[in-house]
């Protein structure tokens, strides 16, 4: 039963994440005044990638890709979807924050093992970006924990039940803005997409990934979208009355990120970290002080 539950959550999140990616591509196309691919394009891409021949460099590369996907699916199991979680835990923010890093570290391990200099540059940029966004995001979460006297995502989501005016977005708007900016960096959208940068470093971390490995990378990205938007929905938009409500709210959060992605150019990595440490961090600290006193 538990295994069935885990499989259901894993496949569900992957499917939802891939559909979001497809819808994001469609929205991007409409912003460019194009027709755009169908919304299930990402699913077709992944099936094609899994059917291709692929190149592996060594065992660490295989292990790293699996580790990153497994790490993010493990994270996803702790994110409550309208009150339901695969694993019940009452301090799951700590677990989520701890496990989320494993996904990115696995990806770093895999692509660094390939030995391509572009991949190494991309990974070093991605890890530097992680340093930039985790500090403000954790500060916002610290504010939430103090506000709710609990480190359980489910409790924080449940405390906002009732009406729209109970949502945390109205209680802590500065924290929400900080979290939204850091979300942009977490998902690697512009202006914080220095690690992908196809024009400069040939897709960065993905440069050596071919076929099945890139397919796994797609799946990892899909789960990471699900986890990150799911956290924002749980923290600021009151979770969701039912799973469909939850997914629709996630889609809203994701589309805001995609539209911002389309209208911004790219920061250099040092500018991005500087920006993240000044503006979202400042907002988060002000929010924390307002909550504490």
């Amino acid at each position, binding site marked *: 039963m538990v295994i069935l539950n885990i499989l259901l959550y894993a496949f569900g999140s992957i499917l939802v994440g891939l559909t979001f990616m497809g819808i994001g591509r469609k929205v991007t196309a409409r912003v460019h005044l*194009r027709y755009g691919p169908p919304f299930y394009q990402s699913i077709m*891409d992944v099936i094609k990638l899994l059917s*291709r021949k692929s*190149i592996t460099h060594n065992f660490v590369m295989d292990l790293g890709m699996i580790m990153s996907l497994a790490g993010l699916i493990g994270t996803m199991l702790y994110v409550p979807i309208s009150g339901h979680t695969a694993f019940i835990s009452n301090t799951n923010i700590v677990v989520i924050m701890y496990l989320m890093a494993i996904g990115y570290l696995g990806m770093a391990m895999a692509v660094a093992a390939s030995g391509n200099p572009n991949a190494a540059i991309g990974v070093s940029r991605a890890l530097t970006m992680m340093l930039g966004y985790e500090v403000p995001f954790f500060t916002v979460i610290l504010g939430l924990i103090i506000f709710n006297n609990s480190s359980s995502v489910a409790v924080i989501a449940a405390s906002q039940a009732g009406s729209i005016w109970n949502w945390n977005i109205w209680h802590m708007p500065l924290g929400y803005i900080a979290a939204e900016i850091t979300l942009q960096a977490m998902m690697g959208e512009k202006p914080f997409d220095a690690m992908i940068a*196809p024009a400069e470093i040939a*897709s960065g971390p993905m440069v*050596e*990934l*071919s076929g099945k490995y890139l397919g796994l990378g797609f799946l990892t990205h899909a789960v990471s979208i699900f986890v990150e938007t799911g956290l924002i929905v749980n923290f600021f938009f009151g979770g969701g009355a039912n799973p469909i409500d939850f997914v629709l709210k996630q889609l809203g959060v994701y589309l805001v990120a995609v539209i911002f992605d389309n209208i911004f150019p790219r920061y250099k990595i040092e500018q991005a970290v500087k920006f993240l440490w000044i503006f979202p961090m400042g907002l988060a600290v002000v929010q924390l002080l307002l909550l504490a006193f």
Partner: protein
Amino acid sequence: MQILDYAKEEQKKQEDQKLWDKVINYFRKRSLWMLHYCTGCGAMELPPILTSRWDIERFGVGPMATPRQADILLLTGYVSTNTMKRVIRTYEQMPEPKWVLAFGSCTVNGGMYWDSYNTVNNVGEYIPIDITIAGCMPRPEAILDSMIELMDMIQRGEAKAFQKYKENYSYYKENQDRLFKRTKPVLESSALRYIHDENGGEQ
């Protein structure tokens, strides 16, 4: 007679396509990522097919930055003998299944550079080409048309040039070697050879 047998064999192979192949071919044709090796003026026709007028992304075709992830190699325009080495290297880095699309008359017969000393006439002798688009330059409509033709070929299981390359490698390799004998690296020209040899002696 041999040609007829070959055609019959191909026909039989298509009819024998298993259901699994048909399903996978559907996904392959709906998600073609292209690596454009832009050597000549054909590159100018690519921005229009990617942007709002002839948006090719609606067929799932999109640009990719590295050969590891690409399905189609686009050769746009003439290829010189030195460029050919890079083209072959790029082509051989792409994982299977892979397809090659050649643009314009330059790739067919050298085009307006057909008697130039360093331009490759008929790229098809050195790497296998699935579809060649005629024209100088082909219009974006022609490129779209060729993409759709390639998709049909993939669905029918006919686009197998990469297998042709593997099966007839000796033929292609011989042609490539003959071509590369004609070219010498710039650093080994008569004026620089002496200095170069003294510094390392590497050819």
